[in-house]
Every structure is written in C-alpha cells, then in structure tokens.
C-alpha cells in the first residue's frame, strides 16, 4: 500500500511538473496516435505529423489538390512542363526563407537519389527534370503526362540548407524536423512517448486556433480508448467496437469519417507457396462471409470489399464483385483448380496442402479479430490460414503474408507503387502483366472518362487474380472530447484513418 501511494505521488508530482512546464493546457490538444519512426514527408507519406510540420506545392482541399506553397501553377501540354510560382516570404521554422532551391532539392532527392529508401519514389518516376527559373519560380518537366501528378505535388518540401549532403534515411533531421507547415516541431520525448508541436505564428496562410498539439504515441487500441476515457487524450482514432462504446456518452463526441482503407489478407509472392499457387487466391473469396464480418467485427462501421480502389475516384465497378459468399460454389471452383480434399479435411494439390501463414501485429486488435474470423471461415471449408501474432512485422521470417490495410483516398494511381511489378511499394512482389499495363495506361491517360474505363477494367482484372483477400473497408471512427469543434468529415481519409488534421487550422478547443 505504501509503495502504491508513493508511486501515485511520484506520478502526480511528475504530472504537475509537466503541466507547469507547459504553462497552460487549456488550448492544447492531446492526440493519441500511431507510433512514427520518423517525421519526414519523403519517408512516411500516410502520416499525420508530416502533414502538420511540412507543406507542399499543393495541398488537398477535401480530396482535390489545390495550390499551397505555390501561389499558382501552369501546365503546358506541348512541352509537358509545370511552372510553379511560389509564395514570397514563406519561412521555414528556423527562420530561413523557402525558395525555389528547396523545391528543386526535394524533387531531385525523390527522383535522383538512389539511396533514398522510400515507398513513394515510383510516383515521381515521370519527372524528367526540375529547375529553378528564379528564386520564386520552379519548372518541372515531365517525360510523359501523369494524371495523378498534381496529387503527388502535395509532398512536403524539405529545407535544402539543413539536409544537403546528408543521408535521408538516417539523418537526425528525421527526428527533429523543420518545415514550413502549420505547426512547428518542439520536442520528441521517446521515453515519455510524446511528440509536441506548437502552432506556427508566422504561417503564410490561416494560423491555427489551437496553440499546441501533444501527440501521444500509443499503438495499442485498447490503451487509446482507455486514455480517452480517463481524460488523458482529447482525440483518437478507435476501432469500431471501442468507438461504439463512446456513442451517446456525455463529454464525448463521435466523429465518423469515411475512409478508403481496406483490410484483407495480403499474400507474399516472394514465398514458395504463393509462387506455386498464384491461381488460387481469388477462389478464397467465396468462403468469406464479408457481410457478417462487417456486421460482427466492425459493428456495421464499414462495407464488404471487392476491389482495392472501390472507394477511390473512378473506382467502384460492381462488375468486379464476382465472388458471392457461396460455399458450394467454393468447393466447385477450388476442385476445378485441381485441389482435392485430403484425409485431414484440408485441400491438397501436387502433394502440397492448402495451408499458409500470415502475420498480424498483436496490438492491432481489430486486425487480429478479422484474421481470426477469416482463418476460421477458411478452416471450415478446408483451407488452413495460420495466424502468427508479432510485435513488429518480420518480413524475413517466411510468413506467407500479413493482414494488410491500404487506401487510395485520392487517385486510384496511389496503388501504382503497390501493384506494378517492381514498383517502390510492391513489398509483396505482386506481378501481373495485365495489371501493370492497365495501371500504366490509367496513369498516363488524360481524359477522365477514359481513365474511368481503364480503372473499371483494372478492377475486373484484379478481382480475377487478387494479391489480397479483400475483406472490408473501414469507417474512420474518431472520438474526441465534447469541446473539440471543427473536424470536417467531408474528407475521405486514408490508411489508418490518416488525414483527420487536414483542416486543423479551423479547429477550436473549449475546455
């Protein structure tokens, strides 16, 4: 008891000391979010913090790109050239002015630096050259037209005067970032799992109302919910079950976004099993009762998935929804592929059992639940999916896949890097010539109607030989304290419900 009291006291005094240190908490938002390794727009795209600390040539207004650091831009179709006029007087958080050199430096790193280990480089491969005409004008010449390029120009601009000559993957800048964004980085307390950012009073556009954001890095879903409940966090993305618990509770608000974020079992085509059984990925869809998973695991907060770009622009071709939940059909189709049920009730072909493993991170409870249910449904029909709970993904352990999530909340071309053979984010080694072709056509087509058709074809082609057993799209269920206003659910969020801070400058917090 004495020890317990001591502990409580020490925690209390620590908290008081902290509070005194940060002077006034009344206009500080405490956000419980994922644990980032870096805050660098080039290294981790789908993350909240880079979007706060950095800003790009363009930004998303809802889900459409509009000029941000650029005052205006022009595109000359004949010479395939974008000309950006930059805002004057934009300062990095260290006081130095942003010029065309910084923009050139950022884009040259993306396109020319071979050491850069980034998942997005494939999105910039059509850039032929970047040059500064004068300190406020940047010319970007393309090698061919890229329909999603304006989206990709939203990437944050990094300061040349700090990063020149450094290795982007390892520079201390990644933990101590300086950008031009709405919030300035203050400190990263790795022991206290806290990242603090403060509003940028010199911001070139609307300065945010909320003075400070304390970003608590917690990965465990139940911890986030407990923190909200205990008043230790003001805003967090919760899984649908925990979010449901806060509905109608006094002092809390549920803010439900749409996301383009799906969950499914992604197959690793590096592994021998899927190399040999590429043809048998789609058939598994017949055995999964996706509707029941949405109703049960997601308590209705989502919808059954049939295509990765179902909720993106141009996506949602219902002709790609070719797998009804039908167990009789499943056994018919799988036997057509040459699988026979073995003595133990598991399908076999060429002496190999239909048995594969996936890894799931143990703290992502919703994914663990989905994996468990899917595994159970597959087992019921004679396919074994073993689940390995890990604390960190281990890509070398030889698992046949993982419980994946991905999103293209803007342009379907966001899947280019993941699905095209050899592209920068194709970590599962998915390779399908038809998909490569359609993805390339879609990227370089100009006419929106033509693109719509191409992506409709893509969805049908992908459904026939999917790299992921798609299960469901999630809603982005945020929960906040009642005093937080201004969140705009008009934006469709991305993977891990990222993008909630898109209009943070309009938020207000009343305690």
């Amino acid at each position, binding site marked *: 008891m004495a020890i317990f009291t001591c502990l409580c006291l020490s925690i209390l005094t620590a908290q008081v000391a902290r509070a005194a240190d940060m002077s006034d908490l009344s206009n500080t938002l405490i956000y419980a979010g994922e644990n980032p390794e870096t805050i660098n727009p080039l290294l981790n795209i789908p993350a909240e913090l880079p979007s706060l600390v950095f800003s790009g040539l363009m930004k998303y207004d809802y889900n459409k790109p509009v000029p941000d650091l650029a005052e205006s831009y022009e595109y000359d179709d004949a010479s395939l050239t974008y000309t950006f006029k930059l805002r004057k007087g934009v300062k990095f958080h260290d006081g130095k002015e942003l010029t065309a050199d910084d923009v050139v430096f950022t884009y040259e790193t993306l396109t020319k630096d071979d050491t850069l280990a980034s998942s997005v480089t494939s999105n910039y491969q059509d850039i032929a050259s970047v040059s500064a005409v004068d300190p406020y004008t940047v010319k970007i010449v393309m090698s061919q037209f890229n329909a999603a390029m304006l989206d990709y120009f939203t990437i944050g601009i990094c300061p040349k005067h700090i990063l020149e000559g450094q290795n982007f993957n390892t520079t201390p800048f990644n933990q101590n970032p300086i950008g031009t964004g709405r919030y300035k980085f203050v400190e990263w307390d790795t022991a206290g799992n806290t990242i603090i950012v403060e509003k940028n009073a010199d911001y070139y556009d609307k300065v945010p109302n909320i003075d400070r954001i304390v970003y608590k890095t917690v990965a465990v879903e139940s911890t986030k919910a407990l923190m909200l409940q205990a008043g230790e966090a003001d805003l967090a993305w919760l899984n649908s079950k925990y979010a449901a618990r806060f509905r109608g509770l006094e002092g809390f608000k549920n803010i439900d976004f749409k996301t383009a974020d799906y969950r499914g079992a992604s197959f690793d085509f590096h592994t021998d099993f899927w190399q040999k059984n590429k043809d048998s990925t789609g058939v598994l869809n017949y055995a999964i009762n996706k509707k*029941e998973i949405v109703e*049960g695991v997601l*308590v209705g907060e989502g919808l059954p998935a049939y295509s990765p770009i179902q909720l993106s622009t141009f996506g949602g071709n219902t002709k790609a929804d070719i797998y009804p939940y039908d167990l009789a059909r499943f056994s018919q189709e799988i036997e057509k592929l040459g699988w026979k049920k073995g003595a133990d009730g598991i399908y076999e072909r060429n002496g190999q059992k239909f048995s594969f493993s996936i890894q799931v991170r143990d703290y992502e409870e919703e994914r663990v639940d989905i994996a468990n249910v899917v595994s*159970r449904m597959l087992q019921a029909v004679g396919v074994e999916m073993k689940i*390995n709970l890990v604390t960190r993904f281990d890509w070398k352990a030889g698992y046949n896949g993982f419980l994946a999530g991905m999103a293209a909340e803007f342009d379907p071309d966001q899947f280019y890097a993941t699905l095209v053979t050899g592209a920068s984010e194709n970590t599962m080694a998915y390779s399908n010539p038809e998909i490569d072709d359609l993805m390339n056509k879609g990227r370089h087509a100009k006419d929106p109607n033509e693109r719509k058709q191409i992506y409709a074809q893509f969805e049908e082609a992908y459904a026939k030989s999917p790299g992921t057993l798609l299960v469901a799209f999630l809603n982005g269920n945020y929960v906040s304290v009642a005093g937080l206003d201004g969140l705009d659910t008009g934006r469709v969020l991305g993977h891990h419900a990222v993008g909630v801070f898109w209009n943070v400058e309009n938020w207000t917090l009343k305690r």
Partner: protein
Amino acid sequence: MSGVEANDRLETVSGADADDSLETVGGADADDRFEMVGPDYVKRESAVKVATFRDWFKGKPIIACLVFTLILMGCLFAEFLINHDPSQFYLTNLNQPPNSEFYFGTDSMGRDIYSIIWQGGRASLLIGVLSTIILTVVGVIYGCLSGSTGSFGDNVMMRAVELVQSIPTLLMILLIISLMATQNVLSISFVIGITAWFALARIVRSEVRQIRNSEYVLASRCMGSSFLFRMRKHLIPNFVSAIMFVVISSVATNIGMESTLSFLGLGLPVEVLSWGSMLALADRALLLNTWWVIVIPGAFLVVTLLCLTQMGNFFRERTNRRPSNI
C-alpha cells in the same frame, strides 16, 4: 512400487496411532470392565465410538475434493457439456450477457464463454499437471543427489540453487520463452516446470539428510546398491508425504503461472483456448463493460486454485501431526 510401500507405511503409522489412543482410553476407564448393576442401574454408553462415516470425513477437505472433481470431470468430458463450438465466432451474438442460449454469455467476438471454459480448462489443468510432473522429477532427483553427497558437493549444489532462485521466476520464464519459437501446451509446461523446482529440491534435500544415515540406508549402501535404487526403495517412500503438500500446491501455482503468462500475451497462442488466454481479453472486456467475460473464467480459476490449495494444506497438516522420524 514405491507408491504401494508408502501406503503400507501410512497405514502402519495410523495403526500405531489408533493403538495408542485405545490404550489411553482403556487406562482411564479400567473399571468399566466390571459393571456394577444395582437398583438404580443406568445403562452407560461406551466411550469408544465406532468410527462413523462422519468421523472419517472429519478434517478432510471433502468439499474441495468434490468441487475439484466436478471441474476436472467437466473438463475431461467437455464434449458432453458444451452446447456451442468453443472456437466458433457467433458474429450475430456479440457481447451477450449470460442467457439461456449462451449460459455464461459471449465475448466481443461472439465466442461462447461456457463452452470455452470447459474446453480451455483442459489446457490449463494439463499444463498444471505436466509442469508439476516435470518439477517433481527434477526437484526430487536433484534433492536426493544433493542430500546424499558429501558436505562439499551438497554445499555447491545448494548454493547453485540459491543463486538461480534469486532470479525472479517470471523474469527467468520470459528469458527462456524469448529463446523459443511459438508456444504450445508442452513447451509452456516445460518452461514453467523447469523454473519452479528449486523449493522442492531444498525440502527433499533436508529430508534426505535426515534419513541418509539410517541403518537401512547404510545397509543398502554396504550391499552395493545403486543411487537410483536407494532413491526409489528407501528415500522417496520416506519423504513422499512430506513433499505431497508442495507438489499439490505446485499444480495450483503452475495453473496460475500459465494464466499470468497468457494474460501478458506470452503464453499460449490465441487460438489455443485456456483460462489464461480467456483472461487475456480482460482489458477489452473492461472497456466494453462485459463483466461476465472476466468474472466467470476468473471465478473458475480461483475456485480451482482454492480447492487445490485446500488439498495441499491437508497433506501439510497431516505431515506436521505425524511424529518426527529423526
């Protein structure tokens, strides 16, 4: 063999006790052999009662035994008791409080708690028993060796035990588990057993030191018996009742340890059902206000542990009552 002998011995001991009591009774009431019969003769009842059923039960942990047998039977014959598939997710029946279809309710994934308890109890009890067997074998052999060798060897062996014992058990288990791949019932039992035999070895060693110079042990040595033979024929039968308490309480401790490990997420994989892996869902249940998900498996665990402790306690008291054999 040794078991039979132990029983024999127990019987003789209790026989001797009974004789003693008879004698004293006889001494006090010596005059009863002659009864004076007179006009106001009242028939007197004999002071020595025939042992009734009730007397036999006296002091024995009957309720604990009964309850434990019930739980054990329930787990062994789970197939006849359960009314749902324990590993099935009833996604249309999430977080149901106890009702007539799901007797103990369902958890947030629609699993039937009632069916899991019986099925999961198997793993928990099996781990408890298996790890106890491991710790008993290791502890007894080590204790006998240490007790039988000379004082130098004994010193070294006991200091070694003390040294390892000073490492917290949980820490040691975590270290061993981190070296192993995925867990199953056998490997968990092994890890728990291999880290829990130290206390037993010390008790065995002190018992062995008391009897190692008895004439029958010396005689056996002189006749060239092997260590294992002496351990089996002379040592174990003499201390088996003394360590019974430790062994039975170990079952309880080990079941508790499995629950602790599974609760921490270090024990059995999620798809292997046990009481511990059920308790691992506790924080989720707290958030979702589903008390039955924690309270019911918790109650089963606590009741089982209480029963085992009661039974262990009975053996301890009996050993303490017995005349010392120094």
